[in-house]
């Protein structure tokens, strides 16, 4: 009798652990974003290693039926090309002073199949705010459980600058002439938030 009661207690405990929500926070060195675009002179790329935000999800995630909460923010002035002049033009076009961060808040995560081996493919829908303009955006993401305290999220999103009120810059770069940039840009990111160690 006692054994049955203990076993029942353990089962309830395990069920509680499965439902328990953990908060996975951004860590320095735990994320990178790349934006690729086109221009009259050549294609361009900018990168950022400062990805902030969190995921609140249960221990089954990316499996299970829980509804995770996801927020991501990226400081615009840390998005850089390696060319100071290009960065100045880009940050100005993105209205960095008034809107210092790109923000994404997930509203829906739709699984594309069943997550296996701790890895799943999804369509993540949410509000994306750039340069003060907010649009609903859906992007394919892969979410993987790296360990009990670490997740890995990778994804790609293609957006148009004009969708966010950004006129594709055509800067007059000293020594380079006038450069016209294309409207379409591809954002690729990799992010590994972790549960903070006590």
């Amino acid at each position: 009798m006692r054994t049955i009661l203990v076993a029942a207690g353990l089962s309830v405990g395990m069920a509680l652990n499965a439902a328990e929500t953990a908060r996975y926070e951004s860590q320095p060195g735990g994320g990178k974003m790349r934006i690729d675009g086109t221009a009259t002179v050549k294609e361009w790329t900018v990168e950022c290693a400062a990805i902030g935000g969190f995921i609140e999800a249960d221990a089954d995630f990316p499996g299970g039926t829980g509804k995770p909460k996801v927020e991501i923010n990226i400081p615009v002035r840390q998005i850089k090309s390696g060319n100071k002049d290009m960065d100045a033009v880009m940050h100005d076009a993105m209205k960095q002073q008034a809107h210092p961060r790109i923000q994404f808040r997930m509203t829906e995560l739709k699984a594309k199949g069943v997550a296996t081996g701790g890895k799943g493919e999804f369509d993540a829908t949410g509000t994306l705010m750039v340069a003060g303009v907010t649009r609903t955006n859906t992007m394919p993401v892969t979410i993987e459980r790296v360990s009990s305290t670490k997740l890995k999220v990778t994804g790609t999103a293609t957006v148009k600058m004009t969708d966010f009120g950004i006129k594709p810059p055509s800067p007059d770069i000293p020594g380079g002439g006038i450069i016209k940039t294309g409207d379409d840009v591809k954002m690729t990111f990799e992010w590994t938030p972790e549960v903070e160690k006590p």
Partner: protein
Amino acid sequence: MQHSNAGDFSRRDFIRGGSMAALLGLAGAVELRAAAPKNAEGKELTGPKVKVGVIGLGPQGRDIISTLQLNPTAEIAAVCDHYPVRLRRSATNCPGAKATDDYKTIIADKEVKAVIVATPSHLHRHIAIEALQAGKHVYCEAPMASTIEDVKAMAVAAREAVGQVFQPGLSLRADPQRHFLLQFVRSNAAGRTVAMRAQWHKKQSWRQPAGDPEREKELNWRLDSRISPGLAGEIGIHQMDMMTWLIKERPKAVTGFGGVMHWQDGRDVADTAQFVIEYPGGAQGIFECTLANSFDGEYEMLYGDLAAIMLRGNKAWMFKEVDSPLLGWEVYARRDVFYKEAGIALVMNATKLVAQGDNPVEDAPFANTPLSFALEAFLNNVNDVGSAVEDARDTFGTDDKRKLAKHLATLKLAPAATWKEGLEAAVVAIKANEALTSGRRVTFEKGWFELA
């Protein structure tokens, strides 16, 4: 580079354009610089200015001020020297800057973000460390200090100042022409390095006159063997560091020769010297320096078994051996003749210059000085590191130094010397001077280069 002399200032600049900015400033001219980019509304996009305090207003400090005044990112907020004549002179040239004879005033000023230390070398330590501990970014002229103990103390302070820029004044490390050249060396275009040579020739006294004996002793610290790092520290450090950088090996020993050959005015610091620096791979670097003759000025040579490379000012040439393989690009390169040798000009952005209709021969894109590149890198890095620290705190919600250091390691900063290169270069220069003054070959000890 601390090889200027107040009385020789304008001649030095005329001969080698050592500080074009200062020369143009003296002549009342305005140097034409590349304009900042503009946005769609035609507004110039310039980054935030960095408020700088300059401590030490001798020839090098004044050179730094003249160079900063041509940089749109710099705002000279304060100047400091305990010699009233120098302080008045620089205050007049920097309207709007606070003038003080006490460096602690600048360090305590919260408006000042960055401090430039251009005092005599033996006085760098406490000023630089106090500035770092007060949260300032610091540019400290090379050598960092005159003793290994002082250099190490400064390196420790710089290492612990996470989120702050510490840049020693090894200006060649920020020179784009040197970085461009490094590609040829690293790609083995010159083959195995068998020897290196550098020279610095300029006839000048170093002695500065003063009204009273005490002031004269203070002004002529470079001629006092008890505190001066000599020609090795005050001049050779840059080119010896260049050799170490090119060959990518830490020297194993150094021998020095020299003495007072011309300026027989009671000094005991050599005015002419030669140093032989031995590297573990077998190659040796020879550095020669004299204050007694100006012929052939300043240059560096790297001798490889496939080619020799010569650097003069902001130009470089490659002299190939007859048995070295053809490099595809050399077919299109310009050749310049030096006596009996033809050197392939190694010009940065040559293709771009031709496309723009500019002449790569006459329109060398880097007419600026290593000092201007070094200060530009410092100011840009101050802004980049400063904004990265602020954004990291907001993004990751932490002030943890270890985490901050991890994030800062992802930044791509403008190339410039760090405390590590400053420490290495200073140790080599200090020991080279010791080799000269003692007459003994000095073998480098690992511990001199390492911090606790």
